Protein backbone atom coordinates (compact mmCIF):
# COMPACT_ATOMS: atom_id res chain seq x y z
CA UNK A 1 0.00 0.00 0.00
CA UNK A 2 1.15 3.49 -0.89
CA UNK A 3 2.35 5.84 1.83
CA UNK A 4 0.32 8.98 2.56
CA UNK A 5 1.95 12.24 1.46
CA UNK A 6 1.23 15.95 1.63
CA UNK A 7 0.54 18.20 -1.39
CA UNK A 8 3.91 19.86 -0.76
CA UNK A 9 5.63 16.49 -0.94
CA UNK A 10 3.96 15.73 -4.25
CA UNK A 11 5.06 19.13 -5.60
CA UNK A 12 8.60 18.41 -4.48
CA UNK A 13 8.79 15.11 -6.35
CA UNK A 14 7.27 16.62 -9.49
CA UNK A 15 9.90 19.37 -9.28
CA UNK A 16 12.65 16.83 -8.65
CA UNK A 17 11.70 14.92 -11.79
CA UNK A 18 12.15 18.10 -13.83
CA UNK A 19 15.88 18.01 -13.04
CA UNK A 20 17.85 15.89 -15.50
CA UNK A 21 21.26 14.44 -14.79
CA UNK A 22 24.20 16.78 -15.41
CA UNK A 23 21.97 19.82 -15.58
CA UNK A 24 22.90 23.13 -13.98
CA UNK A 25 20.00 24.33 -11.87
CA UNK A 26 19.31 27.66 -10.20
CA UNK A 27 17.91 26.12 -7.09
CA UNK A 28 16.30 28.76 -4.93
CA UNK A 29 14.93 28.06 -1.48
CA UNK A 30 12.08 26.05 0.06
CA UNK A 31 10.53 23.27 -2.04
CA UNK A 32 12.99 23.40 -4.99
CA UNK A 33 15.89 23.02 -2.58
CA UNK A 34 14.38 19.76 -1.34
CA UNK A 35 13.61 18.76 -4.93
CA UNK A 36 17.27 19.27 -5.77
CA UNK A 37 18.24 16.95 -2.91
CA UNK A 38 15.82 14.28 -4.12
CA UNK A 39 17.03 14.52 -7.72
CA UNK A 40 20.68 14.36 -6.69
CA UNK A 41 20.10 11.21 -4.65
CA UNK A 42 18.02 9.45 -7.28
CA UNK A 43 18.13 10.26 -10.98
CA UNK A 44 20.42 13.29 -11.33
CA UNK A 45 23.57 12.51 -9.32
CA UNK A 46 25.68 14.91 -11.40
CA UNK A 47 23.37 17.90 -11.32
CA UNK A 48 24.94 21.18 -10.19
CA UNK A 49 23.16 23.74 -8.04
CA UNK A 50 23.68 27.50 -8.49
CA UNK A 51 22.67 30.08 -5.91
CA UNK A 52 22.44 33.83 -6.54
CA UNK A 53 24.86 34.69 -3.76
CA UNK A 54 27.56 32.91 -5.78
CA UNK A 55 27.43 29.47 -4.19
CA UNK A 56 27.91 26.44 -6.44
CA UNK A 57 27.15 23.01 -4.98
CA UNK A 58 27.19 19.41 -6.10
CA UNK A 59 25.64 18.14 -2.89
CA UNK A 60 22.68 19.41 -0.88
CA UNK A 61 23.77 21.16 2.31
CA UNK A 62 24.19 19.04 5.43
CA UNK A 63 21.30 20.71 7.22
CA UNK A 64 18.10 22.49 6.23
CA UNK A 65 18.50 26.03 4.94
CA UNK A 66 16.35 29.04 5.72
CA UNK A 67 18.27 31.22 3.28
CA UNK A 68 20.84 30.44 0.59
CA UNK A 69 23.38 32.44 2.61
CA UNK A 70 23.16 30.15 5.65
CA UNK A 71 26.55 28.79 6.73
CA UNK A 72 25.67 25.14 5.92
CA UNK A 73 25.27 26.18 2.28
CA UNK A 74 28.86 27.46 2.27
CA UNK A 75 30.47 24.52 4.04
CA UNK A 76 31.44 21.89 1.46
CA UNK A 77 30.36 24.07 -1.45
CA UNK A 78 32.12 23.43 -4.75
CA UNK A 79 32.76 27.14 -5.02
CA UNK A 80 31.80 30.46 -3.50
CA UNK A 81 32.19 33.02 -6.23
CA UNK A 82 30.50 36.28 -7.02
CA UNK A 83 26.92 36.78 -8.14
CA UNK A 84 28.20 38.03 -11.48
CA UNK A 85 29.90 34.66 -12.05
CA UNK A 86 26.80 32.50 -11.71
CA UNK A 87 24.47 35.04 -13.31
CA UNK A 88 26.97 35.64 -16.10
CA UNK A 89 27.16 31.93 -16.88
CA UNK A 90 23.37 31.90 -16.96
CA UNK A 91 23.30 34.82 -19.38
CA UNK A 92 25.80 32.86 -21.45
CA UNK A 93 23.29 30.03 -21.69
CA UNK A 94 24.85 27.61 -19.21
CA UNK A 95 21.94 27.24 -16.78
CA UNK A 96 19.45 24.58 -17.80
CA UNK A 97 16.69 25.11 -15.31
CA UNK A 98 15.51 27.52 -12.65
CA UNK A 99 12.67 27.29 -10.12
CA UNK A 100 10.50 30.28 -9.32
CA UNK A 101 7.65 31.17 -7.03
CA UNK A 102 5.41 34.20 -7.20
CA UNK A 103 2.33 36.02 -6.04
CA UNK A 104 0.72 35.67 -9.46
CA UNK A 105 1.41 33.63 -12.58
CA UNK A 106 -0.65 34.08 -15.71
CA UNK A 107 -1.95 32.16 -18.72
CA UNK A 108 1.36 32.70 -20.55
CA UNK A 109 3.62 31.93 -17.62
CA UNK A 110 4.47 35.52 -16.72
CA UNK A 111 5.10 36.12 -13.03
CA UNK A 112 4.41 39.04 -10.72
CA UNK A 113 6.41 39.42 -7.53
CA UNK A 114 6.44 43.23 -7.44
CA UNK A 115 3.15 45.08 -7.12
CA UNK A 116 -0.55 44.45 -6.67
CA UNK A 117 -2.37 47.45 -8.08
CA UNK A 118 -0.91 50.58 -9.63
CA UNK A 119 2.89 50.55 -9.04
CA UNK A 120 2.88 54.27 -8.26
CA UNK A 121 0.30 53.69 -5.50
CA UNK A 122 0.25 49.94 -4.96
CA UNK A 123 -2.40 48.11 -2.97
CA UNK A 124 0.32 45.64 -1.99
CA UNK A 125 4.05 46.14 -2.36
CA UNK A 126 5.57 42.72 -2.82
CA UNK A 127 9.29 42.14 -2.16
CA UNK A 128 10.32 42.31 -5.83
CA UNK A 129 12.22 40.25 -8.33
CA UNK A 130 15.34 39.22 -6.49
CA UNK A 131 16.96 37.01 -9.10
CA UNK A 132 13.65 35.65 -10.39
CA UNK A 133 13.35 37.95 -13.41
CA UNK A 134 16.90 37.02 -14.41
CA UNK A 135 16.21 33.31 -14.16
CA UNK A 136 12.99 33.73 -16.15
CA UNK A 137 14.89 35.77 -18.75
CA UNK A 138 18.05 33.73 -19.10
CA UNK A 139 17.74 30.09 -17.98
CA UNK A 140 17.08 27.53 -20.72
CA UNK A 141 13.73 26.83 -19.07
CA UNK A 142 12.01 27.60 -15.81
CA UNK A 143 9.41 25.96 -13.63
CA UNK A 144 6.95 27.78 -11.39
CA UNK A 145 5.80 26.30 -8.08
CA UNK A 146 2.66 27.92 -6.71
CA UNK A 147 -0.52 27.33 -4.75
CA UNK A 148 -3.50 26.76 -7.03
CA UNK A 149 -6.23 29.37 -6.70
CA UNK A 150 -7.67 32.07 -8.92
CA UNK A 151 -5.88 34.89 -7.13
CA UNK A 152 -2.58 33.29 -7.99
CA UNK A 153 -3.32 31.78 -11.41
CA UNK A 154 -4.61 34.83 -13.25
CA UNK A 155 -5.52 35.67 -16.83
CA UNK A 156 -2.85 38.36 -16.97
CA UNK A 157 -0.44 39.49 -14.25
CA UNK A 158 -0.98 43.02 -13.00
CA UNK A 159 2.77 43.65 -13.26
CA UNK A 160 5.11 41.52 -15.31
CA UNK A 161 8.18 41.03 -13.14
CA UNK A 162 9.58 37.82 -14.62
CA UNK A 163 8.99 37.18 -18.30
CA UNK A 164 7.20 34.02 -19.33
CA UNK A 165 5.78 33.88 -22.84
CA UNK A 166 4.52 37.48 -22.68
CA UNK A 167 1.39 37.54 -24.79
CA UNK A 168 2.24 34.53 -26.91
CA UNK A 169 4.81 32.11 -28.21
CA UNK A 170 6.88 34.56 -30.25
CA UNK A 171 6.95 37.34 -27.69
CA UNK A 172 10.26 36.38 -26.04
CA UNK A 173 12.22 36.45 -29.29
CA UNK A 174 10.60 39.75 -30.27
CA UNK A 175 11.61 41.34 -26.99
CA UNK A 176 15.19 40.15 -27.48
CA UNK A 177 15.31 37.47 -24.80
CA UNK A 178 17.98 35.01 -25.88
CA UNK A 179 16.25 31.72 -25.04
CA UNK A 180 14.13 29.97 -22.44
CA UNK A 181 10.65 30.40 -21.12
CA UNK A 182 8.30 28.52 -18.83
CA UNK A 183 8.34 24.73 -18.97
CA UNK A 184 5.80 23.95 -16.28
CA UNK A 185 3.70 25.34 -13.47
CA UNK A 186 3.55 22.91 -10.58
CA UNK A 187 0.54 23.72 -8.42
CA UNK A 188 -1.25 22.17 -5.48
CA UNK A 189 -3.77 20.68 -7.94
CA UNK A 190 -1.84 19.61 -10.99
CA UNK A 191 0.93 20.30 -13.44
CA UNK A 192 0.49 22.81 -16.26
CA UNK A 193 2.70 22.80 -19.34
CA UNK A 194 2.90 25.16 -22.29
CA UNK A 195 1.67 24.83 -25.85
CA UNK A 196 4.57 25.19 -28.27
CA UNK A 197 2.52 27.17 -30.77
CA UNK A 198 0.37 29.22 -28.42
CA UNK A 199 2.79 29.73 -25.55
CA UNK A 200 -0.25 29.22 -23.29
CA UNK A 201 -0.46 27.00 -20.21
CA UNK A 202 -2.64 23.89 -20.28
CA UNK A 203 -3.31 21.23 -17.67
CA UNK A 204 -1.02 18.29 -18.36
CA UNK A 205 -1.56 16.09 -15.29
CA UNK A 206 -3.94 16.33 -12.37
CA UNK A 207 -2.96 15.41 -8.84
CA UNK A 208 -4.53 12.23 -7.47
CA UNK A 209 -7.90 12.89 -5.83
CA UNK A 210 -8.36 16.34 -7.42
CA UNK A 211 -11.41 16.95 -9.64
CA UNK A 212 -10.95 18.60 -13.02
CA UNK A 213 -13.90 20.93 -12.44
CA UNK A 214 -12.25 22.19 -9.26
CA UNK A 215 -9.01 22.88 -11.12
CA UNK A 216 -10.91 24.84 -13.75
CA UNK A 217 -12.88 26.76 -11.13
CA UNK A 218 -9.70 27.72 -9.31
CA UNK A 219 -7.90 28.93 -12.43
CA UNK A 220 -8.29 32.57 -13.42
CA UNK A 221 -8.75 31.90 -17.12
CA UNK A 222 -10.52 29.27 -19.26
CA UNK A 223 -7.96 26.51 -18.76
CA UNK A 224 -7.09 24.26 -21.68
CA UNK A 225 -6.66 20.60 -20.79
CA UNK A 226 -4.60 17.96 -22.54
CA UNK A 227 -6.79 15.51 -24.52
CA UNK A 228 -5.47 12.59 -22.50
CA UNK A 229 -5.39 13.84 -18.94
CA UNK A 230 -3.56 11.49 -16.61
CA UNK A 231 -2.99 11.72 -12.89
CA UNK A 232 0.31 13.11 -11.69
CA UNK A 233 2.50 10.11 -10.80
CA UNK A 234 2.60 9.75 -7.03
CA UNK A 235 5.77 9.97 -4.96
CA UNK A 236 7.62 6.71 -4.51
CA UNK A 237 8.55 5.47 -1.07
CA UNK A 238 12.15 6.28 -1.84
CA UNK A 239 11.34 9.85 -2.82
CA UNK A 240 9.32 10.34 0.35
CA UNK A 241 12.08 8.85 2.47
CA UNK A 242 14.59 11.34 1.10
CA UNK A 243 12.23 14.30 1.48
CA UNK A 244 11.73 13.42 5.12
CA UNK A 245 15.44 13.03 5.66
CA UNK A 246 16.06 16.47 4.22
CA UNK A 247 13.17 18.17 6.03
CA UNK A 248 12.84 16.07 9.19
CA UNK A 249 10.75 18.65 11.05
CA UNK A 250 8.49 19.10 7.99
CA UNK A 251 9.31 22.82 8.04
CA UNK A 252 8.66 23.26 4.33
CA UNK A 253 6.78 20.11 3.39
CA UNK A 254 4.00 19.73 5.96
Amino acid at each position, binding site marked *: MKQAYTPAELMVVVAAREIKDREVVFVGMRLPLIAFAVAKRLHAPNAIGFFENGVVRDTPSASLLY*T*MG*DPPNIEDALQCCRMTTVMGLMQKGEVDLGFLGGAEVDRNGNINT*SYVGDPSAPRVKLPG*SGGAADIASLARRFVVIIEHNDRRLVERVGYLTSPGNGDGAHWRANEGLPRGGPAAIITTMGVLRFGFESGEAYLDTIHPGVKLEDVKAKTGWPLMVTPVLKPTPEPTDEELRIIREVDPKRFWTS
Partner: protein
Amino acid sequence: MTMRDAIAQHVPDGSSVALGLALEALIPFAAGHELIRQNRRDLTLIGPISDILFDQLIGAGCVKAIVAAWVGNVSAGLGYNYRRAAETGVPNKIHIEDHSNFTMALSLLAGGLGAPFIPARTLLGSDILKTNANLRAAASPLDGEQVLLVPALVPDVAVLHVQRADETGGNHCWGNLGVSEEGGLAATKVIVVAEEIVGVDVIKSDPNRVLVPAHRVTAIVHEPGGAHPSPVQGYYGRDTDFYQEYHTQSQTAEAFEQWRQRWIGAIGSRAVYLKLLGAERWRALAVKDKKLAAPANFSAT
Protein backbone atom coordinates in the same frame (compact mmCIF):
# COMPACT_ATOMS: atom_id res chain seq x y z
CA MET B 1 37.18 53.90 14.74
CA THR B 2 33.92 53.47 16.60
CA MET B 3 30.77 52.77 14.63
CA ARG B 4 29.37 56.01 15.98
CA ASP B 5 32.26 58.04 14.55
CA ALA B 6 32.34 56.14 11.25
CA ILE B 7 28.66 56.81 10.61
CA ALA B 8 28.85 60.39 11.88
CA GLN B 9 31.83 61.27 9.72
CA HIS B 10 31.15 59.35 6.55
CA VAL B 11 27.40 58.96 6.07
CA PRO B 12 25.71 62.36 6.11
CA ASP B 13 22.02 62.95 5.42
CA GLY B 14 21.20 62.38 1.77
CA SER B 15 23.89 59.76 1.17
CA SER B 16 23.43 56.77 -1.06
CA VAL B 17 24.50 53.74 0.95
CA ALA B 18 25.11 50.19 -0.25
CA LEU B 19 24.34 47.63 2.46
CA GLY B 20 23.87 43.87 2.56
CA LEU B 21 25.94 43.18 -0.53
CA ALA B 22 26.69 39.57 0.47
CA LEU B 23 22.90 38.97 0.43
CA GLU B 24 21.61 37.09 3.48
CA ALA B 25 24.97 36.83 5.25
CA LEU B 26 27.34 39.49 6.61
CA ILE B 27 24.61 42.14 6.72
CA PRO B 28 25.97 45.21 8.55
CA PHE B 29 23.08 45.52 11.03
CA ALA B 30 25.22 47.38 13.58
CA ALA B 31 25.92 50.09 10.99
CA GLY B 32 22.25 50.27 10.06
CA HIS B 33 21.22 50.61 13.69
CA GLU B 34 23.73 53.40 14.18
CA LEU B 35 22.21 55.23 11.18
CA ILE B 36 18.85 54.97 12.94
CA ARG B 37 20.28 56.10 16.28
CA GLN B 38 21.86 59.13 14.63
CA ASN B 39 18.49 59.89 13.03
CA ARG B 40 19.93 59.99 9.53
CA ARG B 41 17.50 61.29 6.86
CA ASP B 42 16.98 61.10 3.08
CA LEU B 43 19.19 58.08 2.51
CA THR B 44 19.13 56.14 -0.72
CA LEU B 45 19.62 52.46 0.15
CA ILE B 46 21.32 50.24 -2.42
CA GLY B 47 21.52 46.44 -2.31
CA PRO B 48 20.34 43.43 -4.31
CA ILE B 49 18.18 41.94 -1.59
CA SER B 50 17.69 43.18 1.92
CA ASP B 51 16.86 40.81 4.70
CA ILE B 52 15.02 43.17 7.15
CA LEU B 53 17.75 45.83 7.44
CA PHE B 54 16.23 48.08 4.76
CA ASP B 55 12.83 47.47 6.37
CA GLN B 56 14.14 48.79 9.69
CA LEU B 57 15.72 51.88 8.16
CA ILE B 58 12.52 52.61 6.25
CA GLY B 59 10.43 52.20 9.39
CA ALA B 60 12.70 54.62 11.24
CA GLY B 61 12.16 57.27 8.57
CA CYS B 62 15.76 57.37 7.39
CA VAL B 63 15.03 56.56 3.77
CA LYS B 64 14.13 58.60 0.72
CA ALA B 65 14.74 55.97 -1.97
CA ILE B 66 15.37 52.26 -2.42
CA VAL B 67 17.49 50.84 -5.24
CA ALA B 68 17.07 47.09 -4.85
CA ALA B 69 15.90 43.84 -6.35
CA TRP B 70 14.10 42.53 -3.27
CA VAL B 71 13.20 43.96 0.10
CA GLY B 72 11.59 41.86 2.81
CA ASN B 73 12.24 39.17 5.37
CA VAL B 74 13.75 36.19 3.59
CA SER B 75 12.76 33.40 5.94
CA ALA B 76 9.58 34.98 7.34
CA GLY B 77 7.92 36.85 4.48
CA LEU B 78 7.15 40.46 3.66
CA GLY B 79 8.66 43.57 5.22
CA TYR B 80 5.87 45.49 6.90
CA ASN B 81 7.64 48.84 7.07
CA TYR B 82 8.50 48.59 3.38
CA ARG B 83 4.86 47.86 2.63
CA ARG B 84 3.62 50.70 4.80
CA ALA B 85 5.94 53.21 3.17
CA ALA B 86 5.16 52.05 -0.36
CA GLU B 87 1.43 51.58 0.13
CA THR B 88 0.44 54.35 2.52
CA GLY B 89 3.44 56.66 2.85
CA VAL B 90 4.07 55.74 6.51
CA PRO B 91 6.37 57.00 7.97
CA ASN B 92 7.14 58.70 4.65
CA LYS B 93 6.84 58.14 0.94
CA ILE B 94 9.81 56.40 -0.63
CA HIS B 95 10.96 56.25 -4.20
CA ILE B 96 11.49 52.67 -5.36
CA GLU B 97 13.91 51.90 -8.18
CA ASP B 98 13.20 48.29 -9.09
CA HIS B 99 16.06 46.05 -10.16
CA SER B 100 16.73 42.37 -10.56
CA ASN B 101 19.68 40.85 -8.74
CA PHE B 102 21.66 40.70 -11.97
CA THR B 103 21.04 44.31 -12.95
CA MET B 104 22.05 45.40 -9.42
CA ALA B 105 25.22 43.33 -9.77
CA LEU B 106 26.00 44.65 -13.24
CA SER B 107 25.38 48.26 -12.27
CA LEU B 108 27.86 47.96 -9.40
CA LEU B 109 30.29 46.04 -11.61
CA ALA B 110 30.11 48.86 -14.16
CA GLY B 111 30.58 51.39 -11.36
CA GLY B 112 33.79 49.72 -10.22
CA LEU B 113 35.05 49.21 -13.76
CA GLY B 114 34.50 52.82 -14.73
CA ALA B 115 32.34 51.58 -17.62
CA PRO B 116 29.35 53.83 -18.37
CA PHE B 117 27.03 50.81 -18.61
CA ILE B 118 27.05 47.08 -19.28
CA PRO B 119 24.73 45.66 -21.94
CA ALA B 120 22.72 42.63 -20.87
CA ARG B 121 20.03 40.29 -22.19
CA THR B 122 18.03 40.09 -18.99
CA LEU B 123 14.67 41.77 -18.18
CA LEU B 124 13.78 42.42 -21.82
CA GLY B 125 9.97 42.56 -21.79
CA SER B 126 9.76 42.91 -18.01
CA ASP B 127 7.64 45.71 -16.51
CA ILE B 128 10.69 46.58 -14.43
CA LEU B 129 11.77 48.62 -17.46
CA LYS B 130 8.53 50.57 -17.13
CA THR B 131 8.93 51.48 -13.47
CA ASN B 132 12.71 52.00 -13.44
CA ALA B 133 13.61 54.70 -15.93
CA ASN B 134 17.30 53.96 -15.49
CA LEU B 135 16.99 50.54 -17.12
CA ARG B 136 16.37 50.89 -20.83
CA ALA B 137 16.37 48.58 -23.83
CA ALA B 138 18.19 49.79 -26.92
CA ALA B 139 19.66 48.54 -30.16
CA SER B 140 23.22 47.36 -29.57
CA PRO B 141 25.70 49.62 -31.35
CA LEU B 142 27.64 46.44 -32.07
CA ASP B 143 25.08 44.55 -34.13
CA GLY B 144 21.69 46.20 -33.73
CA GLU B 145 20.31 43.46 -31.49
CA GLN B 146 18.13 44.41 -28.57
CA VAL B 147 20.08 44.79 -25.32
CA LEU B 148 19.34 46.11 -21.88
CA LEU B 149 21.57 49.04 -20.93
CA VAL B 150 22.48 48.71 -17.26
CA PRO B 151 24.04 52.04 -16.23
CA ALA B 152 26.89 52.22 -13.75
CA LEU B 153 26.01 52.89 -10.13
CA VAL B 154 28.45 54.61 -7.77
CA PRO B 155 27.15 54.62 -4.18
CA ASP B 156 28.48 57.34 -1.90
CA VAL B 157 29.29 54.70 0.71
CA ALA B 158 29.42 50.91 0.86
CA VAL B 159 29.38 49.24 4.26
CA LEU B 160 30.91 45.78 4.22
CA HIS B 161 30.94 43.37 7.14
CA VAL B 162 33.94 41.01 7.04
CA GLN B 163 35.56 38.43 9.26
CA ARG B 164 38.79 40.32 9.92
CA ALA B 165 40.65 43.48 9.07
CA ASP B 166 43.82 45.28 10.04
CA GLU B 167 44.27 48.87 11.19
CA THR B 168 45.42 50.00 7.74
CA GLY B 169 42.30 48.88 5.88
CA GLY B 170 43.39 45.42 4.80
CA ASN B 171 40.51 42.97 5.06
CA HIS B 172 39.68 39.27 4.65
CA CYS B 173 36.22 38.00 3.80
CA TRP B 174 35.18 34.44 3.09
CA GLY B 175 32.10 32.41 2.37
CA ASN B 176 29.29 34.48 0.85
CA LEU B 177 30.48 37.13 -1.58
CA GLY B 178 27.38 38.12 -3.58
CA VAL B 179 28.16 41.60 -4.90
CA SER B 180 30.40 42.69 -2.02
CA GLU B 181 33.46 43.07 -4.16
CA GLU B 182 31.63 44.96 -6.91
CA GLY B 183 30.09 47.29 -4.34
CA GLY B 184 33.40 47.87 -2.60
CA LEU B 185 35.03 48.83 -5.90
CA ALA B 186 32.15 51.00 -7.06
CA ALA B 187 31.49 53.05 -3.92
CA THR B 188 33.24 56.35 -3.31
CA LYS B 189 33.77 55.57 0.39
CA VAL B 190 34.04 52.13 1.97
CA ILE B 191 33.38 51.37 5.63
CA VAL B 192 34.65 47.95 6.68
CA VAL B 193 33.14 46.42 9.81
CA ALA B 194 35.14 43.51 11.17
CA GLU B 195 34.58 40.75 13.69
CA GLU B 196 38.27 40.86 14.55
CA ILE B 197 41.14 43.29 14.17
CA VAL B 198 44.33 41.45 13.29
CA GLY B 199 47.89 42.36 12.40
CA VAL B 200 48.78 43.55 8.92
CA ASP B 201 50.85 40.37 8.56
CA VAL B 202 47.72 38.22 8.89
CA ILE B 203 46.01 40.01 6.01
CA LYS B 204 49.15 40.09 3.88
CA SER B 205 49.63 36.35 4.41
CA ASP B 206 46.75 35.78 1.98
CA PRO B 207 46.42 38.62 -0.54
CA ASN B 208 43.87 36.65 -2.59
CA ARG B 209 41.36 36.71 0.27
CA VAL B 210 41.20 40.49 0.39
CA LEU B 211 37.77 41.81 -0.54
CA VAL B 212 38.47 45.50 -1.23
CA PRO B 213 41.86 47.16 -1.79
CA ALA B 214 43.03 48.53 1.56
CA HIS B 215 43.68 52.02 0.22
CA ARG B 216 40.00 52.32 -0.79
CA VAL B 217 38.85 51.67 2.78
CA THR B 218 37.73 54.91 4.40
CA ALA B 219 37.05 53.60 7.90
CA ILE B 220 37.56 50.38 9.82
CA VAL B 221 35.20 49.54 12.64
CA HIS B 222 35.79 46.70 15.07
CA GLU B 223 32.31 45.45 15.90
CA PRO B 224 32.07 41.81 17.01
CA GLY B 225 28.58 40.44 16.47
CA GLY B 226 27.81 43.40 14.24
CA ALA B 227 26.09 41.27 11.61
CA HIS B 228 23.60 39.57 13.97
CA PRO B 229 20.98 38.23 13.20
CA SER B 230 22.67 37.44 9.85
CA PRO B 231 25.48 34.87 9.87
CA VAL B 232 29.24 35.28 9.60
CA GLN B 233 30.93 32.15 8.27
CA GLY B 234 33.22 30.65 10.88
CA TYR B 235 31.99 33.05 13.60
CA TYR B 236 28.25 32.67 14.16
CA GLY B 237 25.18 31.21 12.54
CA ARG B 238 21.95 32.81 11.43
CA ASP B 239 19.46 33.66 14.17
CA THR B 240 16.39 32.64 12.21
CA ASP B 241 14.14 33.02 15.25
CA PHE B 242 15.11 36.69 15.43
CA TYR B 243 13.79 37.25 11.91
CA GLN B 244 10.56 35.49 12.84
CA GLU B 245 10.25 37.62 15.99
CA TYR B 246 10.86 40.77 13.98
CA HIS B 247 8.17 39.69 11.55
CA THR B 248 5.65 39.36 14.37
CA GLN B 249 6.79 42.50 16.17
CA SER B 250 6.73 44.84 13.16
CA GLN B 251 3.23 44.20 11.85
CA THR B 252 2.03 47.64 12.90
CA ALA B 253 3.89 50.93 12.99
CA GLU B 254 3.35 51.04 16.74
CA ALA B 255 4.72 47.56 17.27
CA PHE B 256 7.76 48.44 15.17
CA GLU B 257 8.29 51.57 17.32
CA GLN B 258 8.46 49.34 20.38
CA TRP B 259 10.79 46.91 18.66
CA ARG B 260 13.00 49.78 17.57
CA GLN B 261 13.07 51.34 21.01
CA ARG B 262 14.04 48.02 22.56
CA TRP B 263 16.73 46.91 20.09
CA ILE B 264 18.09 50.23 18.85
CA GLY B 265 16.85 53.31 20.68
CA ALA B 266 17.53 52.20 24.25
CA ILE B 267 20.92 50.86 23.30
CA GLY B 268 24.11 52.83 22.90
CA SER B 269 26.31 50.21 21.30
CA ARG B 270 26.58 46.73 19.85
CA ALA B 271 27.96 45.40 23.10
CA VAL B 272 24.77 46.36 24.92
CA TYR B 273 22.73 44.85 22.08
CA LEU B 274 24.48 41.53 22.53
CA LYS B 275 23.89 41.71 26.27
CA LEU B 276 20.19 42.26 25.62
CA LEU B 277 20.21 39.32 23.26
CA GLY B 278 21.51 37.23 26.15
CA ALA B 279 24.71 35.32 26.64
CA GLU B 280 23.04 31.98 26.21
CA ARG B 281 21.40 32.82 22.91
CA TRP B 282 24.62 34.35 21.62
CA ARG B 283 26.65 31.32 22.72
CA ALA B 284 24.22 29.00 20.96
CA LEU B 285 24.78 30.82 17.69
CA ALA B 286 28.57 30.75 17.99
CA VAL B 287 30.55 28.49 15.69
CA LYS B 288 32.34 25.93 17.83
CA ASP B 289 33.90 23.58 15.28
CA LYS B 290 36.86 24.19 13.06
CA LYS B 291 36.87 23.41 9.36
CA LEU B 292 39.92 25.30 8.21
CA ALA B 293 40.78 26.13 4.64
CA ALA B 294 43.53 23.87 3.34
CA PRO B 295 46.96 25.54 3.67
CA ALA B 296 48.23 27.64 0.78
CA ASN B 297 51.90 28.52 0.70
CA PHE B 298 52.64 32.04 -0.52
CA SER B 299 56.37 31.86 0.05
CA ALA B 300 58.53 33.08 -2.84
CA THR B 301 61.65 31.28 -1.71
